[in-house]
Each structure stands twice: as C-alpha cells, then as structure tokens.
C-alpha cells in the first residue's frame, strides 16, 4: 500500500512566521506535488517536482517555495506566512512512467495563520 505522510494534521502559526510543511512517501515515486484545498475552489497546484532537486511552479506558487533534497521527501515552505495562506495543504506523489499518473494523497495539513 502506498503511503504518503504529512508532518502535521493541524498547525497554527502567526503572520510573518516561516512555516515548513513536510511530506514523505514510501513508494519510490518520482513525482511529488503540493496542493492547497479551499472550499469552492477545489485543489490548486502550488508546486511539483519530477525528481530530486527539481521543482516546477504550479498554478499558485506566489508566497511559497519547495525543497526536494531526497526522493522520498518534499517540503513546502511559507517564507512569511499570511492570513490568506490559511488553508488545507495536501501532498501527493505518483510514478513518473507513462500511463501511471495516478496520484496518491496524504491526509492533509490544516494550517491556520493568525
């Protein structure tokens, strides 16, 4: 069974703090993704990575950065948290081979920025 784990289920941070969200997958997947999920907006892609040390911007990268130093780990960084970054953050991973793009999701981190 594929397992994607996220470091926290709930997180409360203050405006201006630097926030790290960690994601780990145990299936040797090449691709990893960070989304935010907001009511009425669905899932929006923030960043993704095809390989170690590689990253690509998604649809809403502003205010975020990522790091992928190891294949199994993908970190999302909020350099200076703001209240409009209060959201549910979902990590996902998938194989990189053609025809196998099913993404496996973690449980999510509900971040509140006050």
């Amino acid at each position, binding site marked *: 069974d594929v397992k994607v784990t996220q470091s926290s289920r709930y997180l409360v941070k203050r405006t201006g703090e630097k926030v790290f969200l960690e994601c780990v997958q145990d299936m040797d997947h090449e*691709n990893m993704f960070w989304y935010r999920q907001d009511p009425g907006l*669905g*899932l929006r*892609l923030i960043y993704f990575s095809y390989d170690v040390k590689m990253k690509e911007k998604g649809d809403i990268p502003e205010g975020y950065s990522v790091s992928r130093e190891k294949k199994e780990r993908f970190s999302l960084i909020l350099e200076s948290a703001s209240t409009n970054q209060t959201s549910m953050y979902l990590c*996902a991973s998938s194989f*990189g081979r053609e025809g196998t793009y*099913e*993404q496996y999701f973690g449980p999510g981190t509900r971040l509140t920025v006050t």
Partner: protein
Amino acid sequence: AQSVSQHNHHVILSEAASLELGCNYSYGGTVNLFWYVQYPGQHLQLLLKYFSGDPLVKGIKGFEAEFIKSKFSFNLRKPSVQWSDTAEYFCAVEVSGFQKLVFGTGTRLLVSP
C-alpha cells in the same frame, strides 16, 4: 490553460436514488481522466480513471464514468447511492505527458438515509 468544470456544487439524494455528476474539461488533445473521492475526515482517494480504450470505465464501490470525447465530458454515475457515498467528489484531467492534474472545484454529495 486547461480547466475542469463541475457544475453541481452540492447534490442531495435519498438512498437508492441514481447519481450523475457532471464533469467537462477544456482541452482538445489527448487527456487522461480521473475521479477522486474524499470521504469525511479521510484522504483523497482514486475512484476511477480513464487512459484509453473502452470509454465506459468502472471504478470502486459501484461507480462508473463515461468518457465522451465529442462533448469533452467525463460524467460519474452510480445507479443506486448509499448513505456511505456521502463525500466530496473531484474530477481531474491530466494532459497526456505532462504528469500533473487539473482538478475541478468538487461536488459535495449528501445521501440521506
């Protein structure tokens, strides 16, 4: 840019009613199509997927979806819903070869017993 439309934001059904959730996408090339489900308090999980072949695909828990290329649609169906189908359903599209998904805004389904 590709986009995915789910026109029903909230659906309320009684048990045993039939379900059809609409999904339309805007891309003229080859696509891979997915339906994901998120049960209350649980991970997002794959319900079914279409890559090629028979346009009628069957998924878990009695769900099926039909890909109609001419209509750019991939509607989800279930002949008889159960209370346990209460969840949020997301349609997603992957433009072939790009490996990233574009999700619709989701449909919240409430099935009353």
